[in-house]
């Protein structure tokens, strides 16, 4: 019954979405007041998807093997938390989660979107329902999560140990929440283009959604990066892998949107550009979902290729994004640009920020898809890897980081104050850092060296907006900006230190042998077999010493029999000034063991910076929402009727 109830709820939600879309057409073509019924429909639709998702979760929690999806992806012997996480750890379930979040976002928009013009809200809700409708069709036609098996098998097949990881259980939902949060920005942009009400009110209504989505994407990317770092065993935190890029591209677009939306909210300028970015940000989310779900780009996250699912998603992508672009081409010209601004002003600072972010986005986009297009045209295979991305995106990133320190000091419209004077101290610190690296580390490559200098500059420049005023009276949004920008400096310092100062030792060692890596001497004491719950393992005992510090590390290699897989479980020790990262590899024919050792100075700053950036975003979001609550504007009904 559980599965059937879920299936019925999903159908109902689809029907409500269709009804909601029809209501929008009715409202835009006539004067019928549909705002109230439409709000109700959107809320009930969100409730229905929640019921459908809850039913699937229940089926997983109770290990109901008569449901095909549970049989394929779960097993009664799994720990309970992974049974529940299994709900979205597969294709059908994750698409159901996607549409659930989409519909609930629509419900929230209906409930709290009152600051918008009524017609724009209706058009936005209509657009959101059309987005959801496509995904309902996708689920109901191409990938029904509630399909039954008869006769029902005794137990499930899904005991893949690799997927039993807390990181993997919560990483996808975080990213999905971010992706789908951008759908609201998309729908509001489409709605506003339809009604022509592209103004600062729209920007203020859109901003919390973009900010929320951006925070979650930041967290998702940071967490995903750390997961790849400790799990893959190669000491890298970012591989420019297509699936990683698929999450980075929406983030870049959302970052640009977050900044341009401020210009629209404060000054009513950059209308067309902001609408374009809102469309692009969600398009990138859909491209990302498509790349991951269709499996067309080979990567470490490789999923099986499934042409039917891929085709469905691609058609949805083409329809939605195509429709939005066509709408933009038709209506974009009718948008009147807002207040003018001068060359040196906060507006133009944000325009430059947007330009650089767009260029980086284009670089990542091209690099990710270039191999595909070259092969399509000439049949030649090639791959684009880290050297391209680092060399091309790195310098732009550095320039952007410098400007991040300058931009917030500029004032709207026209800059009259001596901004350069304020930057004396940060610039001095940057130059000092540069000089110190030249003296202490003359061999350092150019990008890490500049990275450290820029990080020193930005770390101080980013707090300037709080200097010269009472910090306690500064708005939370300003605090959020300062913390997020300081987070960029912290992450940049980590990236540069890791790139410039990592010592690496990849070698074959016999038991009793001593190796050195960075400041550490590491002794391979022993390699012993041990047994885990569902795997056998080899464990190396390492004794690492640095001065008076003596620690022991135990990297392992796990061998799973079902399915036959082998994983390297790295052993990592964190210190205030870096991480010692050890991996046990295969036995060598010579009788030794392959060992991979890294000393990575200040590498943890990368993720600490990511967390700071997200924290800054959260503060800004909290501050904005708090203000909206306090400033009780008259309801739109009072103003329009």
């Amino acid at each position, binding site marked *: 019954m559980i599965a059937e109830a879920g299936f019925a709820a999903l159908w109902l939600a689809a029907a409500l979405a269709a009804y909601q879309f029809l209501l929008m057409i009715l409202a835009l073509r006539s004067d019928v007041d549909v705002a109230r019924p439409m709000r109700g429909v959107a809320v009930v639709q969100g409730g229905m998807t929640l019921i459908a998702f809850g039913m699937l979760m229940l089926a997983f929690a109770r290990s109901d093997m008569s449901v095909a999806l549970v049989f394929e992806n779960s097993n009664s012997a799994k720990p309970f938390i992974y049974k529940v996480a299994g709900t979205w750890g597969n294709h059908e379930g994750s698409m159901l989660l996607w549409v659930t979040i989409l519909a609930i976002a629509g419900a929230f928009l209906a409930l709290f979107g009152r600051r918008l013009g009524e017609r724009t809200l209706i058009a936005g809700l209509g657009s959101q329902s059309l987005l959801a409708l496509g995904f309902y069709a996708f689920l109901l036609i191409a990938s029904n999560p509630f399909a039954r098996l008869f006769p029902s098998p005794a137990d499930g097949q899904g005991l893949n140990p690799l997927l039993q990881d807390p990181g993997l259980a919560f990483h996808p939902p975080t990213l999905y929440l971010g992706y789908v949060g951008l759908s609201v920005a998309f729908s509001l942009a489409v709605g506003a283009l339809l009604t022509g009400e592209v103004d600062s009110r729209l920007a203020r209504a859109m901003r919390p959604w973009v900010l929320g989505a951006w925070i979650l994407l930041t967290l998702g990317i940071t967490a995903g990066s750390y997961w790849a770092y400790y799990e893959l065993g190669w000491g890298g935190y970012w591989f420019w892998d297509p699936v990683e890029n698929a999450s980075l591209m929406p983030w870049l677009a959302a970052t640009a949107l977050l900044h341009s939306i401020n210009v629209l909210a404060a000054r009513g300028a950059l209308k*067309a550009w902001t609408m*374009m970015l809102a*469309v*692009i940000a969600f*398009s990138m989310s859909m*491209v990302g979902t*498509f790349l991951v779900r*269709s499996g*067309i*780009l*080979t990567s470490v996250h490789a999923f099986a*290729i499934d*042409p039917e699912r*891929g*085709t469905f998603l*691609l058609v949805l*992508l*083409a329809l939605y*994004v*195509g429709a939005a*672009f*066509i709408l*933009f*081409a038709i209506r*974009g*010209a009718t948008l009147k640009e807002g207040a003018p601004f001068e060359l040196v002003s906060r507006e133009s600072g944000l325009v430059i920020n947007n330009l650089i972010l767009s260029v980086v986005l284009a670089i990542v986009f091209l690099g990710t*898809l270039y191999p*595909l*297009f070259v*092969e*399509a045209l000439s049949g030649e*295979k090639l791959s684009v890897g880290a050297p391209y991305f680092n060399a091309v995106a790195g310098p732009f990133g550095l320039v952007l980081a410098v400007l991040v320190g300058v931009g917030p000091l500029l004032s709207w419209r026209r800059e009259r104050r001596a901004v350069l004077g304020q930057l004396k101290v940060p610039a001095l610190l940057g130059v000092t850092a540069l000089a110190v690296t030249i003296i202490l580390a003359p061999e350092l490559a150019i990008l890490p060296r500049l990275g450290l200098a820029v990080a020193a500059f930005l770390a101080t420049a980013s707090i300037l907006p709080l200097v010269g005023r009472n910090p306690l009276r500064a708005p939370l949004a300003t605090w959020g900006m300062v913390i997020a920008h300081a987070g960029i400096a912290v992450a940049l310092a980590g990236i540069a230190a890791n790139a410039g100062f990592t010592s690496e030792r990849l070698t074959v060692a016999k038991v009793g042998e001593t190796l050195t890596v960075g400041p550490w001497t590491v002794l391979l004491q022993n390699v012993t077999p041990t047994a885990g719950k569902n795997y056998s393992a080899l464990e190396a005992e390492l004794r690492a010493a640095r001065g008076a510090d003596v620690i022991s590390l135990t990297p392992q290699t796990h061998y799973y029999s079902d399915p036959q897989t082998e994983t390297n479980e790295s052993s990592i020790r964190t210190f205030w000034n870096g991480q010692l990262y050890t991996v046990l590899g295969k036995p*060598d*024919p010579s009788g030794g063991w392959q060992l991979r050792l890294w000393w990575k100075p200040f590498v943890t700053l990368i993720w600490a910076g990511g967390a700071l950036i997200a924290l800054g975003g959260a503060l800004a979001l909290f501050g904005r929402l708090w203000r909206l609550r306090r400033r009780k504007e008259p309801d739109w009904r009072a103003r329009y009727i």
Partner: protein
Amino acid sequence: MSRGLRLIPILLLVWLVGGLAWRLVKPPSPAVPSQLVERAVPSFDLSPAVPTKPGLKSADLRGSGPRLINIFGSWCVPCAAEAPVLNELKKRGVVIDAIAVRDTPDAITAFLDRYGDPYGRIGNDPRSNVQIDLGSSGVPETFVVDGQGIVRRQYIGPLSQSNIPGVMQQLAELR
């Protein structure tokens, strides 16, 4: 903004969707063509891996007819699985030379006794140097080399029965 400019996103989207659709229709093949294909093998000189057979050097590959070079290790399970196919090819008159990677004479002899011995020459490559020069990333891999020592094809992973007709045909063409 001019009309032309506003159409650019649409054109980009058409381009993107076209490319992605093409990939969906034509999934990527896992085989990566070697950069060495249609080029001469790099020069190398490997000592004999077992006392009973000669070693392998690049000069051996010139002027003596097309052949296969099989890269294997006695410690490699897929290599054992591949052995019947190589024996079948040998029976049909194919010359097969080999490079034994990270191996010892005793282990190779035991391997050949157990799974059959299709090889003419076996070069010993204890540190994978020649394997890497050849652009081989694992074992087993098999190169088709013509009479002038030029690599014509690289098979990654074990050969299977279904590869036999293709290998025979290519060798016949090269003769």
